[in-house]
C-alpha cells in the first residue's frame, strides 16, 4: 500500500551562488529543474534578500514513485553584509515543523502533507582554506533543526591531494566548532564485511567532493555525464574523479529513510518539545494572571470536569502530553540501512 502511495522526500540545498547547487541537483535526480532560470547580475542582487524557493518533481523508477521537493536558498551569502542571512532558512524549516505540528493535532490526519525538510546539503566552497565564518555560523544555526550533509562543491578544481587535505581540515573544523552534522547510523554487527567497508568509506568521505554536470560528453567511446576541458574529461559518475556516486547512493538508495527518521525522531521532536514548553509557559503565565489554582501544565494534568471550560491551548497541551507518554512506551522497530526501500512500514498513527 505504501508503495502505491509513493514516498516523499524534501531536500534543501544551501550555499553561496555559483557553487553548482542547481547543476548538482539536476545531476542527482536526472531532472531539469532549473531550465528557465535567469541568472541575476550583481546590481540586481543588491536588493535581494535570501529567498526560499521550492521545486517539486515526481520521479518514478521501477514502479516506485518518489515525490521529490527541492528547497533552494538563492541569495544566501551573496551580499556584502551577510549577517544572519540564514535566518530565513531557519524560519522556513521551523514553519514546516509548525505546519506539521498543527496538522498532527488536527482532526483529519489521514492525508498529512509532510513538507518537513529531511536533509540539507550544505555547499562548501573549494576556493577557501576550509570552513569560512559564514559556513560555521550557518551550520551552527541549523544543525539542531535539520540533517546537515556537507559537500565540497566544484571539486574538479582540486587535485586529489588538495581534496584530501581539505576534507581533513573541514572535518577537524566541524569538530572544533561543535557542529553536529548528520551521522550515518552505525552498522549492525551482523552485517557482512563488504557492507561494513562501504559504511566506513562513507563516513570517511565527508564532506563529499562533488561535481555536477548538465551535459553528456563522450569519453573513451562511452557517453557519460561530464565536463569537457582542454586537458581532459571529468566524469561525474566515476568514483576516481569525485564522490558523486557515493552521495547519490547515500541520499537515494541507502539513507533516505534514515534521514526521514532522524528528522522525525530528533529534529521534529526537538521542535515539538520546545513548542510545547513555550506554550505551557504561556499558559502558566496566563493562569497565574487569572489567579486560578492549578498545578503547572508540565505535570500530568488531572482530567478536568465538564464544568470547567478549557481553552483550546490547554486541550492541545493535554493531548500532546498524553501522546508523548504513549510514544515513549511504543516499541521501536529498527530497519537495517540496507533494507530495501520498497518495504517501508509507517508506524506512526
Amino acid at each position: 500500500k505504501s508503495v502505491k502511495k509513493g514516498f516523499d522526500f524534501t531536500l534543501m540545498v544551501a550555499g553561496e551562488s555559483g557553487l553548482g547547487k542547481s547543476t548538482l541537483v539536476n545531476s542527482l535526480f536526472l531532472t531539469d529543474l532549473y531550465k528557465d532560470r535567469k541568472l541575476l547580475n550583481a546590481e540586481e542582487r543588491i536588493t535581494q534578500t535570501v529567498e526560499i524557493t521550492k521545486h517539486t518533481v515526481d520521479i518514478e523508477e521501477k514502479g516506485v514513485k518518489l515525490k521529490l521537493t527541492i528547497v533552494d536558498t538563492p541569495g544566501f551569502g551573496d551580499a556584502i553584509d551577510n549577517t544572519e542571512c540564514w535566518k530565513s532558512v531557519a524560519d522556513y524549516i521551523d514553519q514546516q515543523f509548525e505546519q506539521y505540528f498543527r496538522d498532527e493535532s488536527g482532526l483529519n490526519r489521514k492525508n498529512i502533507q509532510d513538507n518537513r525538510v529531511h536533509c540539507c546539503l550544505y555547499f562548501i566552497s573549494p576556493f577557501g582554506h576550509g570552513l569560512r565564518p559564514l559556513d560555521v555560523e550557518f551550520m551552527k544555526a541549523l544543525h539542531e533543526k535539520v540533517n546537515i550533509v556537507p559537500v565540497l562543491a566544484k571539486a574538479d578544481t582540486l587535485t586529489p591531494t588538495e581534496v584530501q587535505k581539505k576534507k581533513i581540515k573541514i572535518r577537524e573544523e566541524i569538530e572544533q566548532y561543535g557542529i553536529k552534522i548528520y551521522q550515518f547510523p552505525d552498522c549492525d554487527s551482523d552485517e557482512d564485511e563488504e557492507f561494513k567497508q562501504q559504511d566506513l568509506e562513507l563516513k570517511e568521505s565527508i564532506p563529499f567532493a562533488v561535481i555536477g554536470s548538465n551535459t553528456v560528453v563522450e569519453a573513451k567511446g562511452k557517453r557519460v555525464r561530464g565536463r569537457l576541458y582542454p586537458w581532459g574529461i571529468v566524469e561525474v559518475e566515476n568514483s576516481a574523479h569525485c564522490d558523486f556516486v557515493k552521495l547519490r547512493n547515500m541520499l537515494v538508495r541507502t539513507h533516505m529513510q534514515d534521514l526521514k527518521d532522524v528528522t522525525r525522531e530528533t529534529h521534529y521532536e526537538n521542535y515539538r518539545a520546545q513548542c510545547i514548553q513555550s506554550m505551557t509557559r504561556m499558559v502558566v503565565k496566563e493562569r497565574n494572571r487569572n489567579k486560578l489554582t492549578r498545578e503547572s501544565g508540565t505535570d500530568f494534568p488531572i482530567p478536568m470536569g465538564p464544568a470547567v471550560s478549557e481553552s483550546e491551548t490547554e486541550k492541545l497541551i493535554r493531548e500532546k502530553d498524553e501522546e508523548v507518554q504513549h510514544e515513549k512506551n511504543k516499541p521501536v522497530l529498527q530497519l537495517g540501512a540496507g533494507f530495501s526501500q520498497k518495504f517501508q512500514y509507517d508506524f506512526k498513527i
Partner: protein
Amino acid sequence: MSSHGHGGSQSSGGGSTLLGYIGIDTIIEQMRKKTMKTGFDFNIMVVGHSGLGKSTLVNTLFKSQVSRKSAGWARDEKIPKTVDIKSVSHVIEEGGVKMKLTIVDTPGFGDQINNDNCWEPISKHINEQYEKFLKEEVNITRKKRIPDTRVHCCLYFISPTGHSLRQLDVEFMKRLSHSVNIIPVIAKSDTMTVEEKQEFKQRVRKELEMNGIEFYPQKEFDDDMEDKSDNDKIREAMPFAVVGSDKEYQVNGKRVLGRKTAWGIVEVENPNHCEFAQLRDFLIRSHLQDLKEVTHNIHYETYRARRLNENGGLHPICDTQDSNL
C-alpha cells in the same frame, strides 16, 4: 625593452629633417644602462577572498617564491577579523636588471560574514603610500631617488562562480579604480570549461561597463592610435582567466608548470588551457613601465592635487619652497 621606443630619424609634426646621423637614438641605450645600474621598484597588490590562489599566482608570475605564503606564513593561520595589509619584498635579477618587487597582500578581504567597508584599510594603505611620496617630494633636501612604495598595480581576483560579479567585487573596484590601476583576473579558472569561461567573461565585462569601472589599461589614458589599438585588444580579452602553479610536471617530454588532476594536467603556460601567459606578458613584458607611469603621472597627481588644495596645501617647510610646488 619598452615597446614604446620609436627608432629612425623621421619626425612627425614639423621637426627638421636631419642632414646626418647625430646619435639621438642612443638615448635609449643610455637609459637602459642607467636602469640596469639603479634597478627599479615594482609594487603589486593582490586583493581577493582567501583561497583564490593569489600567492600561488604571484609566485608563478615571477617564477620565484616571492609571495607571503613562501615567506613562512602558516596556511593554517586564522582569518583576521579586519583586513590586514602585509608587504613582502624581494630583489629579482634577470639579464643584469635588478627589480625590487614588493607584493602587498590583503588577508581578510571578503572573508567575514559582514564585509562592509572591508576596502577601507586597502584604500588607506594606497593613500598612505602617496602621502609618503608627497612628503619626500616637498622636502627641501630631497633624496636623489625617492623610494617608491606606491602601489603600481592592484590585481583583483574574481571568484570563478560562473554567474557574474559579486556585490563586493563591484563595490571594491568602483571605489578604487580612481586611485590605483586595477587589473581584474578570474582566479582558479580551471574550474570552467571553455564555453563557461567565455560566457562568464562576457557577463563580467558587461557588469564592469554597467558600473562604470575603468580597469587598467584605462581608455582615457591611451596615448595615441597605436596605443589605443594595442590596448583595445587587451581590454577585450580581459579579465584574464588564470591558473597558477608552482609545481612542475612532465608533459610531452617537456617540464611544465601545472596542476595534476585525475583526468589530465592543466598546463599553466598553455594558451589553450588558460590565459596566464597573456597576463604575464601584459603585466611584465609590455606594460610594466606604463603601469608605473600611469600611477605616477595620473593617480599620484590626482592625489597630490587634492592634497595641496585642501586646507591650503601641505605644511610648507619654508616660504620660498612654495613656488616650487
